[in-house]
């Protein structure tokens, strides 16, 4: 058999998948009877085909079909909104805002009224003669 007469090798997949005409089928079987190379290829693709067909059926994420069949579209839009590089920027910015809110002390604690503090201390400890009480006039002057 010269090159021009040679059967295309992809007929082997057609043979395996039962997608050949009866004439093609006979031709492939004749080739298989005389060519160990074709037999080896048939064995290989049979094995690979079985491996792909034996792959487990993947499960969709929990609740996926409820969302999809309800006509809502949150899975994709939320993931796209937050999943890309801009999502990381937005996420980081949000985290920074939260961190600042918790870590930086409130302004009302940062600026105590010295006069009020000294005055109230003086009123509570005027009899104790403690050193802080001696500062009361200074605080009141401010």
């Amino acid at each position: 058999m010269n090159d021009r007469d040679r059967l295309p090798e992809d007929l082997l997949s057609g043979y395996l998948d039962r997608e050949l005409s009866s004439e093609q089928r006979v031709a492939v079987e004749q080739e298989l009877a005389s060519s160990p190379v074709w037999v080896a290829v048939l064995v290989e693709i049979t094995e690979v085909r079985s491996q792909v067909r034996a792959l487990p059926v993947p499960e969709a994420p929990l609740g996926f079909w409820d969302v999809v069949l309800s006509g809502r579209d949150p899975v994709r839009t939320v993931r796209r909104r937050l999943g890309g590089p801009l999502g990381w920027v937005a996420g980081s910015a949000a985290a920074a805002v939260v961190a600042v809110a918790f870590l930086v002390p409130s302004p009302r604690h940062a600026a105590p009224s010295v006069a009020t503090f000294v005055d109230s201390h003086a009123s509570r400890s005027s009899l104790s003669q403690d050193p802080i009480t001696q500062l009361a006039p200074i605080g009141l002057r401010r």
Partner: protein
Amino acid sequence: MYQVAYRLTGNSDDAADLVQEALLRVRKGLETYQPGSLEGWLARIVTNVFLDEVRRRRRRPVSALPDDPDRVLPATAAADEASTELSADVQAALSSLPEEFRIAVVLCDVADLAYEDIAAATGAPVGTVRSRIHRGRRMLRAALQQGAVRG
């Protein structure tokens, strides 16, 4: 549909996106659907959505993390380590195929479509479909062997 999407994309997030987009197109296309092979029609929509996404990513590359293989296995098989590894290897080999070969193999061996339906779904002649399936399988075999040698 999810199974085909998962095998085409190789991870659950992209598969979920693909299915959602495909279903949106199914809704839009229902009016123009002509009675014929429903499976072939659905396969054509899934294939087109997948190829659109592939083209979009070529313009703006993003990386997708592959799934933990345990997550896609039934509970009974998850305990079987050898089976888990083999599944992960086969999926990795599948994901390494150029898209036209991957689509042909997945539509044939995962969706179990006839060559004629695959031809209708991809717009390629039946002879081209057969050639892509065959070459895809040979590439898969080579990729699995390479993986086994490296592993």
